[in-house]
């Protein structure tokens, strides 16, 4: 009897690590609020990455140590942060010129839903009683060339977050480049979803079952030893 329990999927920190692996040396990166913020902790040795926060800082450093918090030095999530040597402050119009003008290389965002064509919904549930809030998400997806999404593959109640068409209000159309979930890494290419890597213990068939849109396997799809 096989009593070993095989690990299935990636943890949140492994997901963040997967994103970090794809952020290249010298990149200017904007990290969204929440899970995307974790990515900064996993950039491989030897790479220099400059973090942009849309409230006016290029060269954001680590979260401020207890006792050193400065209420006038915050990130987009209004957390107290630090600035690295070589950082720069600027006003909001300049900050979004960096974003909309295509100067930021990569942004990492969370998602409610992503469609097969790369549409993103991440700002509103569409419920009338929820207070709508958009922040900088629409500017980011419109202006940043590589939009990475980091999200659980399914909602807490088990519904697919990768869908044929988003039912939530859109943040942008055909904007997502790559999706990092707990089960797989998926590229959006020519309005189709290509599985780049399957998480440990995840088969393509199982992944497809938990996905609301058609997935494509490629010769290059990386797997982690699951039985075919």
């Amino acid at each position, binding site marked *: 009897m096989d009593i070993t329990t095989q690990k299935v999927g990636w943890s949140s920190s492994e997901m963040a690590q997967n994103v970090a692996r794809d952020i290249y040396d010298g990149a200017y990166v904007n990290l969204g609020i929440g899970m995307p913020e974790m990515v900064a902790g996993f950039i491989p040795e030897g790479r220099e990455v400059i973090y942009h926060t849309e409230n*006016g800082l290029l060269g954001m450093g680590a979260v401020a140590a207890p006792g050193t918090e400065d209420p006038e*030095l915050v990130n987009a999530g209004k957390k107290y942060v630090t600035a690295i040597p070589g950082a720069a402050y600027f006003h*909001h*119009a300049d900050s979004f010129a960096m974003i909309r003008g295509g100067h930021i290389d990569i942004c990492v965002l969370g998602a409610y839903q992503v469609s097969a064509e790369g549409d993103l919904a991440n700002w509103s549930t569409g419920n009338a009683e929820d207070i709508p809030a958009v*922040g900088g998400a*629409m500017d980011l997806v*419109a202006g940043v060339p590589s939009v990475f999404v980091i999200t659980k593959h399914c909602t807490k109640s088990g519904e697919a977050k990768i869908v044929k068409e988003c039912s939530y209000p*859109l943040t942008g159309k055909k904007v997502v480049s790559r999706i990092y979930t707990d089960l797989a890494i998926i590229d959006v290419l020519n309005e189709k979803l290509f599985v780049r890597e399957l998480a440990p213990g995840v088969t393509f068939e199982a992944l497809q079952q938990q996905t609301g849109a058609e997935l494509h396997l490629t010769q290059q799809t990386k797997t982690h030893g699951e039985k075919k």
Partner: protein
Amino acid sequence: MINKIVDSAAEAVAGIFDGATVMISGFGEAGSPVELIHALVDQGAKNLTVVSNNAGSGHVGLAALIENRQVSKIICSFPRTTISVVFPEIYRRGEIELELVPQGTLAERIRAGGAGIPAFYTPASVNTPLAEGKEVRSFNGRDYVLEHAIKADFSLVKCHTTDKFGNLVYNKTARNFGPVMCMAAKTTIVQARRIVELGEIDPECVVTPGIFVHRVVEVSNPADESKLVAEERRYPWT
């Protein structure tokens, strides 16, 4: 002789009239001119349209202005914060109008307002509900939405250092919307931690040239909004 210095926050906000459009700097508490907002609560102007990135926290600053029922409309990008209690309640009762604007579009609409540009096209919000009813035009094969400039009657801004000409230097990420809001108002009112003699600010380091500023008041020890919120303080102080 040019001297933009006024003696008190009350004097600084004098003349703000009912129905005025008022821009308020800040990204959350960073850069929020709490003392000027409280002076406006005391002053009592009503039916204001407020332009600000957020909609206030706790019961102080912008939240106090909303709670005091002086704001009939808010134009902002992110009215939701973890400690935002006043705005959600009044919004759900249908007693305040919300115009939700993507953050970069908000900054650019304000910048355009100050720069004499009536409208501009942006790629942000194309194909989303926030572009509904707006003109969309294609440039080089890509769609852009037409957005109009915002101008204000007054801007309330916080900075770090100023002089009697109204040249401004900010502090870290408290700069945020300050420079563009200074440009976009007929009357720009600034609270500064320090007012220094002319020449003490290196002209190379002036962020907002004094031409955009009309009144400055020294508030040497401004309130720490998050502290007031944590202590559950309310303005007017009870």
